[in-house]
Every structure is written in structure tokens, then in C-alpha cells.
């Protein structure tokens, strides 16, 4: 497995892999018109006098790892909350897979194939890691109270299948030795991995990651990057917020830069890093 090799490797050796995913993205780019998974159009949100999202417009193309960066207070998390249905927008629209999901409930947005994770890993008390994983799959028959009693066999069958899936994904993430550990007793980095693994059980078409490597040690950070790249190659589209520039620039293409609630620019990592306006936004503060 290439995952294990790069564990020991320096992060500089990741560049070829990043280039390859860039190449993949550009080949899909050339094939006729763009295939858009997520479209954010003219999105607005303010909290009292504070404008958190100011007519933001961008789109995420299928098969990409799109990065969403911006200085503190740029409104990245607000946009995530708006897209995933946790906040109600004041105006504008969010479209997932061609369906308008603006102001839908989070579970309805998830039904369209958009799953998100959170900045701080959420702890599930009293659950083992594999129990915490089993929340992931959507539309389980056992989630209906009546089916539990009318069709217990179907419930058990689905549960067994999900359990096997969970085990398989934990193995792919190389954390299967944690399966029966209490979900609250693992390290912060491992929680991030479990969170990503669980989100995969929900079989998202697009996965929104909110700072996936914040507070994660460099080794696990590389593991996470490898996993995200691997899952992307298997067909999942990613939109991720991250403050760790090295991480974003090696992983994401394209990158969307937010400043003061609106999209400052969008482009390839190299363009972004040399753009005057981006440097101004990060260094000059929001004046």
C-alpha cells in the first residue's frame, strides 16, 4: 500500500501525487462542459450588523478536491453551515447535483449526497469506535422503529453488512485495531480519521471537510492527506476548509479564496500563492 510508505516519507514527496490528481482534474475538464456537484450562487448571510457571507458565488466540479481558504473571519465556516443547511441563508441559492437545497434541513441536504464534518471532532460517549462508525450509513432499515419489530431479519442483515463495511473502511484507514475501543478514548487525530471514515460510510457524492488536519500531528496529517487523495481517486468530490497552507496547496485544486464573506479569487494553487490580492488579504487584514 502506498499509504503506509508515505507515512514514513517526508511531505515533500507528496507533490507528484498532487500533480497527478491535478492532471486527473484537467482531463475531466477538457471533456465537454463541466460537471458541477455543488453550486453556490450569490449567497448572503448576516448576523445582525455583521455581514458574514456577502454575495458569495463559486462552484465545485465533480472529481476535484476544492480548497476553501481565507483569513480568520472570512466566513468559511458560515458558508459551510449555509451549504449544509445548519444556517438559513438571507439570499442566494445552493444547488447540489442540480437540486436546489437552499434553506433545506441538514438531513435533506444529506439526502442529496452532501455530507459534512466538523472542525472539532464530535465525541460520542458510551460508544465504541465501530458503533460510532455505524451511524454513518444513510437510510438503514433499522432506523425505523416499526421495522425493528416487523422485519428484524432485514434489520440484522443490513446491520451485519454495515458492520462489515465499517470494518473494511477502518482497515483501509488502518485504524481497525481501534474498532472496539471506546470512541472517546482515542487521540484527536484518530478521531479525525474516524470522522472521515464514518462520513465515507454515508457514501457522499461530495464531502465537506472543516479543517480536517487542525491539531493533528504531521504523521497523521500525511495519512489524512493520502486518504483524502485515495477517496478522491475513487470518485468522491471534496470541498475542504483548511488553515494549513502547505496541506491545502499540496492537496487541493482549484482553491477558492474567501475574504470578508465574498469570493476574492479562484484558481490553481500556484496562481493563488502569488496573487497580490490574496497576500494583501492575509497580511493586510480586513481593512
Amino acid at each position, binding site marked *: 500500500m502506498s499509504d*503506509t510508505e508515505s*507515512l*514514513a516519507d517526508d511531505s515533500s514527496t507528496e507533490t507528484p501525487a498532487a500533480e497527478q490528481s491535478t492532471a486527473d482534474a484537467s482531463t475531466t475538464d477538457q471533456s465537454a462542459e463541466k460537471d458541477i456537484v455543488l453550486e453556490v450562487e450569490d449567497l448572503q448571510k448576516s448576523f445582525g450588523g455583521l455581514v458574514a457571507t456577502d454575495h458569495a458565488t463559486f462552484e465545485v466540479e465533480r472529481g476535484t478536491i476544492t480548497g476553501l481558504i481565507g483569513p480568520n473571519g472570512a466566513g468559511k465556516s458560515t458558508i459551510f453551515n449555509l451549504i*449544509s*443547511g*445548519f444556517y438559513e441563508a438571507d439570499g442566494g441559492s445552493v444547488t447540489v447535483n442540480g437540486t436546489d437545497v437552499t434553506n433545506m*434541513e*441538514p*438531513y435533506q441536504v*444529506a*439526502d442529496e449526497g452532501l*455530507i*459534512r*464534518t*466538523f472542525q472539532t471532532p*464530535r*465525541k*460520542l*460517549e*458510551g*460508544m*465504541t469506535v*465501530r*458503533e460510532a462508525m*455505524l*451511524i*454513518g450509513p*444513510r437510510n*438503514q*432499515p*433499522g*432506523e*425505523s*422503529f416499526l421495522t*425493528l*419489530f416487523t422485519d*428484524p431479519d432485514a*434489520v*440484522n*442483515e*443490513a*446491520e*451485519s*453488512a454495515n*458492520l*462489515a463495511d465499517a*470494518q473494511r473502511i477502518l*482497515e483501509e484507514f*488502518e*485504524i*481497525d*485495531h*481501534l474498532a*472496539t475501543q471506546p470512541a472517546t478514548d482515542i487521540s484527536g487525530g*484518530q478521531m479525525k480519521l474516524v470522522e472521515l471514515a*464514518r*462520513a465515507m460510510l*454515508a457514501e457522499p457524492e461530495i464531502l465537506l471537510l472543516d479543517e480536517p488536519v487542525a491539531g493533528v500531528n504531521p*504523521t497523521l496529517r500525511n495519512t489524512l492527506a493520502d486518504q483524502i487523495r485515495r477517496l478522491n481517486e475513487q470518485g468522491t468530490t471534496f470541498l475542504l476548509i483548511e488553515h494549513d497552507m502547505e496541506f491545502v496547496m499540496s492537496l487541493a485544486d482549484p482553491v477558492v479564496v474567501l475574504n470578508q464573506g465574498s469570493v476574492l479569487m479562484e484558481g490553481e494553487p500556484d496562481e493563488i500563492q502569488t496573487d497580490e490580492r490574496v497576500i494583501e488579504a492575509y497580511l493586510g487584514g480586513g481593512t
Partner: protein
Amino acid sequence: MSLRNDAVDYWSDLTRAEQGVTGSIVLFAAVLLFGLVTGGLNPTYFLFLVGLAGMYALMSLGLNSQWGFSGLINFSVAAFFGIGAYGAALMTSDSSPLLGGFDPIFGLVVALSVAAVMAVLIGVPTLRLRADYLAIASLGLAEVVRLLVLNERQWTNGSGGVRGIPRFFDNWPVLSTFPEAMPGLEIVIIPGSPIELGTPFYQMVLNISLVVAFVAASYLVLRRAHRSPWGRVLRTIRSDEDLARALGKNTYSFKMQSFVLGSVIMALAGVFYAHLNLFVSPGDLNPITTFYVWVAVILGGSGSNRGALFGGVVVVTIREGTRFLNEFAWIPFDTAPLRLLLIGVLIVLIMKFRPQGLLPPQRELIWPDAIAGSETEPERHTNQRPGGDANE
């Protein structure tokens, strides 16, 4: 020999908490048996106490499926209990100011339905809000229900209460005459204090079998629900509702189901009470019941069905057991009023030394068949990774 080994194996498989609880149950049962055999404890009264214990166990199970599963703070246990009791009483009693005279089964259905509707009505505006709003609203509901029952005399007979409630099995073919048909027995084990088993005893036996059936049915349903994907979503909501929402769960619907289920089980306790006591009054809706049940759930261990059962029994033991303390002449003061103090001290001690309760869930909650099903999958990998592993 092998039976003994099995027993030893079983015992060593239990966690320490389970061993402790099992040990104290055995000890307590021995004390009760001693009391019964020596004639110190009247068997009919004893069964009445068992009935009360079952009733509290039911309410604890109900609250556990709200608070223990989903983290819903419901302060209207007494109200739902009262709705069950009054629903059954008003439907079945001869002297009911409302309908009256129906079969107890019909009363049961009506009482549970009213409780379910009430739970939905209180849930619709509050379950979308933060947990504390439900707490306040339910506290208000409890008082509203109690005051309605007390003041709407044309419907409920007010403070006079409802009399003339039939026993639950009065219309049943064999069971209705069972207590009279059974021969009266007088067992003398210790001379001078005979144990009398007459008609009241057999009536109580019927009552007990009713509550045992209620408790067993509720327990089995809740156990299945708890160890299922359904229960897992509820537990996720309790830990972190946003996580459940982000993973595509309609948490409002799940919370509503959990709230209605718990409320119906509480009403079931009320239905039993009406047919046990044969008289209900507004006093039965006093908020103190709510807090006894909360103590039972916290004591047993939130989120654990067995804990709720155990907690319910412990609370009744303390409540009723304090009556007997006066019989010990060497205690120089009246002990009965101490029961509230005792319960208070108990809850402080639990919070201080074992905040998770005596018997919190001990094992992971996946239905055993499902685990067995997934393990028949070919080749389960052990974690063998080349090179160093920081996580070993």
C-alpha cells in the same frame, strides 16, 4: 458440575458493577424471604409493594427512553402517569363523570392514545428548540394537567377523585373469578405467626402478573430499540445532535418518537396504578413522583434499561422501607419523614462517587446477531502493518 462451571463462567463474565448489583439483589431477596417466612412481612402487602416497584420501574423505563436514550429532559413524568391513570379510570369506572363503564382493555388503549397525543402536542413546539425549552414546557405541562384534573369537576370529579374502577381482569373469563375460586391457605412455618393466603392475596397475584407483563413487554421493546440503529441515532443525538443532523438523520422525528414512546410507557404505569388502587385522585399527579423517577433513572445509570428497572425498585424500597424502620425500637426518633432526606443523601453520594449511575450500559450496543453475521465474513484482517506503528 458443568452447571456450576457455567455459573462460575457467567459470574466472571459480568462486570464489577453487574456483580455488585447482582450481589445486593440476592442479599435483598434473602432479607425479604426471611421477612415473609417469619411472618414479619404480610405477603399481600409485599405483593402490593412489588406492584409499586413495577410501577416505578415502568416510569423509569419511560424516562430512560427519553433522557437516557436521547437526552430529552422531561419534567412531566407525573403528568403522563396521571393521564394514564385518569384515562383508564374515567373510561372504566362506574361512577365516572365522563364516559365510564368500558372494558379495561379499551381504557388502556384510550389512556395510551391520549398520552401519545399529549406528547406530540408538547413535542411539536419544543423539540426543535434547545433541550432546556422542553424541560420548562414539560414542567408547565405537569402543573397544567394537575390543575385541570383538580378543577374541571364536571369531567374529573375534582379533588374527590374517581372511585369504582374495576380490576383489570374483571371481564376476563377465568381470571375474573380466580381470586375467589382459589382456596384460602394458612401456612404456619413459625408457630404464632401464620402466613395467610386469602382472596386479597390472589387478587394481588393477578395485579402483579399484570405489572410484570407490562414491565417485561416494555423492557423487551426498549432493549431491542436501544441496541438498534434507531437507538444508535438517539444516542448520537444525546451526545451531539449536530453530528446526527450532518449525517442525514432527521433528528426532530427521532426525538419525537423517543418522546412519545417514553410518555406512553409512563402512561402504562398510570393505567396499572388505576387498576391496582381502584381509586385515583389529583394527589397522584403531585410533581414529587417526577423527581422520584428522575432519581431512579440517575441512580440506575442514564441510558441503561436494566439500570432504570433497578433504580425504580430501589426508590420504592427506600420510600416504603422507611416505614419499617420505626419497628426497630433502638432508633430513638420517627424515621418515616426521613425518606426524602435519605433520597437526597443518596443522590448526592451517587453524583459524588459514581456520576454515571450504578449500572450504566456495560457493553457495546449492537444486536448480537448482527455482529455474528458480520464475523462470518471471510478473513478478518488483523492489523498487520509493515514498519513502525505509532498507535500500537
